[in-house]
C-alpha cells in the first residue's frame, strides 16, 4: 500500500477522559486507502523533548466525510503535545503503515481490547461488521472511567465489559470474563490489542481453544517504515520488524507467545 506524508487538519479534538483524546483529521485531497490495524507516524512539532515521530493506530475512518480519527492516550510529552492541539491545527502524518488484521467474512469473531488498546478495534469492528461477521467486543480497564467509547461499538455487535475494580461490567481482568470461560468458544478468530501481558494471556486462551488469535504489537519505533530495524519482535522465523511485518501478528508466529504465557495479567503491566 502506498505510503503518504500529508499535513492533516484537525477538525475536532475531544477529551474523552483525563488522559484520552479523540482527534478527527481531514485533508484537502482524498485520504489514501487504509485497512484496520495499520498505523500512522505523527510528527510532533513544538515539543523540545520529542525528536522522533510518534506511532498511533488508525482508530476510525469515514470515507464519505474524508476523515480519520486517532485515539491518543497522554503518557509523555509527545502525546500531551498532540492532545493539546486545537481545531484547525495541522498535523504532519506519515501513513498508512504496516500490515493490518486479516478480515474474516460471514463468521463469528471476538475483539478484545484493554486500556488504550481499543484504538485500532473501532475501525476493525466496523469493517468486520460490513463483511457480514457476527461481532462481539470485549473491553477491559482498571475502572469505569477507563472504558472508552463502549457504546460506539454497539452498532457493530455485542459489547462486554470488565473492570478490575468492578465499577463497570464484570469485576476482574478481561481474561477472566465469563464470555471466555466456556471450553468451546463460538469464535473463529480473536483479535486483540492492549498491553503485552493481556495480549499474551488472550493468545493463550485462544490457543487452548484452538482459535486463531491476531494481536497488535506496540514496540518502540524510530522510523515506522522498515528502514532502521529497531522495532523487531522475535518470531519463529527470526527477528521481524513490527512496523512492516506487523503491527498485527498471528500469535502463533511469535516466539514464546502461545505456550509460556501466564493467564491473567494486570492491565498495569
Amino acid at each position, binding site marked *: 500500500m502506498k505510503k503518504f506524508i500529508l499535513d492533516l487538519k484537525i477538525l475536532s479534538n475531544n477529551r474523552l477522559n483525563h488522559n484520552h483524546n479523540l482527534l478527527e483529521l481531514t485533508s484537502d485531497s482524498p485520504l489514501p486507502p487504509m485497512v484496520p490495524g495499520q498505523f500512522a507516524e505523527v510528527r510532533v512539532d513544538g515539543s523540545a523533548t520529542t525528536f522522533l515521530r510518534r506511532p498511533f493506530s488508525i482508530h476510525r475512518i469515514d470515507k464519505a466525510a474524508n476523515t480519520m480519527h486517532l485515539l491518543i492516550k497522554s503518557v509523555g510529552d509527545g502525546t500531551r503535545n498532540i492532545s493539546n492541539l486545537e481545531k484547525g491545527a495541522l498535523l504532519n502524518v506519515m501513513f498508512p503503515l504496516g500490515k493490518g488484521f486479516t478480515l474474516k467474512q460471514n463468521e463469528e469473531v471476538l475483539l478484545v481490547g484493554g486500556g488504550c488498546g481499543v484504538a485500532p478495534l473501532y475501525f476493525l469492528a466496523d469493517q468486520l461488521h460490513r463483511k457480514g461477521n457476527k461481532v462481539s467486543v470485549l473491553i477491559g480497564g482498571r475502572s469505569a472511567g477507563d472504558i472508552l467509547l463502549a457504546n460506539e461499538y454497539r452498532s457493530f455487535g455485542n459489547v462486554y465489559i470488565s473492570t478490575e475494580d468492578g465499577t463497570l461490567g464484570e469485576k476482574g481482568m478481561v481474561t477472566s470474563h465469563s464470555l471466555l470461560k466456556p471450553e468451546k468458544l463460538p469464535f473463529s478468530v480473536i483479535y486483540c490489542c492492549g498491553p503485552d501481558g493481556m495480549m499474551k494471556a488472550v493468545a493463550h486462551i485462544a490457543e487452548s481453544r484452538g482459535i486463531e488469535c491476531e494481536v497488535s504489537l506496540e514496540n518502540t519505533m*524510530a522510523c515506522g517504515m522498515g528502514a532502521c530495524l529497531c522495532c523487531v519482535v*522475535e518470531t519463529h522465523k*527470526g527477528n521481524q520488524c513490527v512496523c512492516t511485518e506487523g503491527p498485527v501478528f498471528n500469535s502463533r508466529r511469535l516466539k514464546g507467545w502461545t505456550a509460556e504465557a501466564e493467564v491473567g495479567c494486570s492491565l498495569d503491566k
Partner: protein
Amino acid sequence: MAGLEVKVHNLSLKNPVLTASGTFGYGEEFDDFIDVNALGGIIVKATTSRHRDGNPYPRMAETPMGMLNAVGLQNKGVDHFVDYIYPKLLKYNNCVIANVSDSTIEGYVEVAEKLNHLDHIRAIELNISCPNVKEGGMAFGTSCPSAIAVTRAVRKVYDKTLIVKLSPNVTSIAEIAVAVESAGADAISLINTLLGMAIDAEKRRPVLSTITGGLSGPAIKPVALRMVWQVSKAVKIPVIGIGGITTAVDAIEFMLAGASAIQVGTANFIDPTATVKIIAGIEDYMQRHGISDVKDLIGGLMV
C-alpha cells in the same frame, strides 16, 4: 544551473548527498516518498559474511535531539545479498554503495571479495566502527594497527573504490585516518555513532537490551563536524561527512569543513524526504551566494 556534481576518488556523484548505511534500508523503503535516483548515491545497510540476527529488543532509545540504537548488524549475510538484494538494487542508476561489516578480518575479506564481482556496486564502505557487536566491528576502528590490518586485507581483494568508515570513539581521529589512508583506503567517511547509554530511572534498568548503544542525530553534529575538519586536514584522500545532518545548511557546514560529499542518516526517519530537500537547499544556498560549482564549497572554511 548550479553545478552539483562532485567526485569521491573515481566515483562521479551527480550531487554530494548520499544516505547513511542502516538508515535507508535498501532504498526501496523510500520509493513511495522520493525519487531515490535523484540522490548522489545510496549506501545500503551493512552486509556481513554470515546471517546475523542482531541484538534482542529493545534496540532504540530516544534522546535529546537524537537516538541510541543497538540494532547489531542484523542482515541475512553476503550470499543472500548477492542473490536476492543485489538484483533489486539494479533499478537505481545512481551510485550504489555497499556497507561491509564483520567481526573477523577473514569475514571482511570474504564479503569484499564477493561484492567485487558485482558491477552495479560501485564502491564499498568498510564499517570498522559499529559499536553494536560484541567482538570486532568497532574494535578494528579504535586502534591504528587493527584499522590498518583490516583495510590492507580488504584492499588486496577489492579493486574498486574503498571507503573506510571511522569510529568517533577514539582519542585521536586524525591518527586513525592517516593510518587507513596509508593502508590503501581511497576515501574516508565519518562519523559512525558515538557510544552512549540510556537509563529508565523508574524501572532502574537500562533502556537498551545491550545496555550501551550508538548515538546519532543532530545531538552528535558538533562532534562530527569537528572530526571531519580534523581528518580532512590530516589526509589527502576525499572525506565524506556524516553526523546529524538534517538540513542543507548542515550539509554545507560539513563541506566547508572539508567533506567532498555527505550522508544523511537519522533525519530520514523523521522526514523520509530529507535528502531531496537537502539537495534543493544546497542549490538555493549556491544561488544566494553566487556559487556556480558546489566543489568550491569543499574545505572552504575561512579561519
